[in-house]
């Protein structure tokens, strides 16, 4: 397969790679993460699961890094055939493209759900979706570099807003809600790992990003930032949700994070009811996640069909739209998210070590010096 993108002119810095990984990871799932965790394990100890899954993500990311460093300047789609041969590679790549398309559809659907719940009750969903998709398309046509720059603009804004909104609830925080630590033993903590993982997977985008980096050796820094910063944010969100709302309330709210922001009230500010404001800002975060996923899917298609990525960006758009309309309700959408988490762990947690092993045995790619 011939490289279809110009990786010499369209390169990204290490900071940009890190920002892209963070933005890819932090998407819509943060709105529901506490409830998902509590549904899997009814214990305040789920914050330990978040830390553990952060560790697991980091390990899985390491394998991806090793694999990418054997094939300098190539994306996953390009070096996969070298490792396994074309026929197997095509199957895996198609699965991955389907994964990225479904993932972006999920992100899109979640965005639509929260927007039409909180901001635009009467506006038809398709119009919300179309505006969102077209702007993402406009951005992505500019290539990975403009995407990276937009992410750099958006990330500080969203993170600062989110942290301020979340941390404002600190005076309602009750440490007793989190006790006893490990009161039910370690088993529920392990049960919580699965949903935590599905919210934290984002390292897989490194498969594509490393190929575009100016200094691929610094990929480890992008991985560190891309795993630990989202882990910290999700950890804070989970701890505060449980500490402020309590176990029961957190488990029964549709969007516990928004409920958390609604729980406090400050008089005398320009705004009241911060949850809508935070949601509006967070839409930008979902936008960046969506655009990266959309780009990843289109890049895969473009390598497979050996076409320019820009035309494939158009083709994947209606597919994503249709897939995003498949779930009937919010609950089904959330279920879809969990299924995607499992798929991601298998695809990007389980496969890379095997691929690495195969490539070492078949002596493909460069040796590590």
């Amino acid at each position, binding site marked *: 397969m011939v490289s279809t993108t110009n990786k010499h002119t369209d390169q990204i810095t290490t900071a940009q790679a890190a920002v892209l990984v963070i933005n890819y990871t932090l998407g819509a799932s943060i709105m529901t993460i506490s409830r998902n965790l509590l549904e899997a394990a009814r214990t305040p100890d789920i914050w330990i699961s978040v830390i553990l899954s952060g560790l697991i993500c980091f390990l899985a990311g390491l394998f991806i890094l090793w694999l990418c460093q054997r094939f300098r300047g190539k994306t996953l789609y390009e070096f996969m055939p070298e490792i396994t041969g074309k026929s197997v590679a095509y199957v895996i790549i198609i699965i991955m493209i389907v994964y990225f398309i479904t993932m972006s559809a999920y992100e899109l659907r979640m965005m639509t759900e929260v927007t039409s719940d909180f901001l635009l009750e009467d506006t038809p969903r398709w119009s919300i979706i179309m505006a969102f998709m*077209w702007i993402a398309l406009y951005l992505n046509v*500019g290539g990975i570099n403009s995407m990276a720059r937009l992410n*750099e603009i958006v990330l500080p804004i969203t993170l600062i807003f989110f942290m301020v909104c979340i941390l404002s609830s600190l005076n309602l925080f009750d440490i007793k809600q989190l006790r006893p630590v490990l009161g039910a033993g370690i088993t529920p903590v392990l049960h919580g790992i699965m949903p935590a993982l599905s919210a934290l997977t984002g390292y897989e985008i490194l498969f594509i990003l490393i190929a575009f980096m100016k200094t691929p050796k610094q990929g480890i820094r992008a991985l560190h930032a891309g795993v630990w910063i989202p882990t910290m944010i999700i950890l804070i969100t989970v701890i505060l949700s449980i500490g402020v709302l309590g176990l029961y309330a957190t488990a029964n709210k549709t969007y516990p994070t928004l409920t958390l922001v609604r729980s406090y009230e400050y008089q*005398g500010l*320009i705004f009241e009811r911060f949850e809508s404001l935070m949601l509006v800002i967070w839409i*930008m975060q979902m936008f960046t996640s969506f655009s990266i996923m959309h780009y990843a899917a289109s890049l895969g298609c473009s390598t497979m069909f050996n076409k320019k990525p820009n035309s494939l960006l158009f083709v994947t758009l209606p597919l994503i*739209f*249709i897939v995003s309309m*498949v779930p009937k309700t919010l609950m089904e959408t959330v279920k879809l998210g969990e299924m995607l988490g499992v798929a991601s762990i298998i695809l990007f947690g389980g496969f890379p070590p095997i691929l690495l092993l195969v490539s070492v045995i078949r002596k493909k790619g460069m040796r590590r010096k």
Partner: protein
Amino acid sequence: MFYIPKWSVFVQSTLVILIPILFVWVSRRLRDSIRSVFSLHLDKSKNVKRESSLSEISGTGQYDQDLQMLQESMAHNADVHFREFTIRGTSCRAVVVYVEGLANSNLIDSHLIAPLMREGVPEADREDFEQSSESIQAYLESHLLTVSHLRWGEKLQPFVQGVLNGSSGLLIEGMKGFFLVGMAKGKSRNVEDPISEALLRGPRIGFTERIGENMGLLRMHGKDEGMVMKKYEVGTRVKKELVLIYMKDIANQELINEIDSRIRRMAIDDPMDSGYIEQLIEDSTLSPFQQLQNTERPDRVIGAILEGRAAILLDGTPFALIMPVTFSMLLQSPEDYYERWISGSFVRLLRFSAAFLALWAPSLYISFISYHSGMIPTSLALSIVESRQGLPFPSIIEAFIMELSIEILREAGIRLPKPIGPAMGIVGGLIIGDAAVNAGIVSPFLIIVVAVTAISSFTIPVYSAGITLRILRFTAMIFAGIFGLYGVIMFFLLICSHLVKLRSFGIPYLSPLVPYRFRDWKDYVIRSPLKILKQRPAMLNPRDKDRRTN
């Protein structure tokens, strides 16, 4: 089967792809047509030379024939005068050709006609003088023409152009060519405070319409042999002087080469103002953002070329162009550097927030009133609702009425004669606003929003950036009218998506904000102390990175 979406979803999904394709098609057609009509790449096949009878003719050396030729080519112009006389001491006839009102008549009288008619050629030199065409030319140059600016040529066309440009032409019997003496005097105005960019502190000097004076103003600024002024002749029909200015040892050579090639490829009959040059060499024609900055201030030009940028001066306009432009430049003013850094930074912060308000205030008003009244504090929401009671229009129409009328007022204010301008402002601003509230068309709260927006937009130090902001403000209002806050966010993302793609002469428009260049952030929203700003901006990749080296 249960999970297959309804047919309407499939229809919508075709819309999802069809509309962008249509959009791309239209914009591509638009871009192509712009390129082919008004092109940077001169279309070779259409490049037919203007029919000119003069271009190949040169002087014959026969006085009567040459004079007739000159008269044929110029005498039909009422302002061209021929003054014939004989050089003293010889029988040589001579004629001075000049344009009334443009040529320097003092120079003609005292340095052309006076020496030739009064002193002439002494007896002793007469033989040397009359030998040949070359000897006449040499003798005149060395003995008689007491002027500094003297050109000689055999071709007729440059002579005619020179005379029509204001030089005085001199034709002498026996000489096989023409002299062009002196330069146009013409009328010029005094150096004045720049009207469009007035400052409280800093030099009160603005460019004028004369390129020679403007270059002089830049040279006058200080001694530096590194400043290069490269001359071009632009315009296919009307020739004009254009000067590219940069610092030889600072500006990046690739940037200079790029600008050079764009100037050379430019093709237009007459670039009337530097605005023409700007539009012909900019990167993206369809972008609402300017990619070259225009300024009347020499100190702004000097500051820019010291950072490693380049500037263009054009004859006949007081506006210089600076390139490449980055977004931050549009909100920075030279004054920020003249004041101490604390006040400079404060003013800059103020300006950034004012620009934010000028762009978003009306759209935020629309979305809070029409969609999310729950987000503003209850007491405020109640008072707004109360004030809006009985208003016939939704907030989007209301805001459009007021914003449009204030833009019309502003536009009218520029055209109005000075004495009635302020009176009109009072009538328009106060009376119409008050009457509109009393008549129940708009709410008083909106008047506040519109006023804040208008005043904020006046803080932007670059006038053309203000226009961009106004256009975007109206678009933002439309988005807010359709989608509320969601629309505002989408429009923000749209602008950002556009800006991250935009480049000005190869420099990303949003740098140094993105990609992160923390070192350049010292001079972005905050203007750090000069003692800290030791480095030139790295985004321009200057040759000499350190400001302190000599």
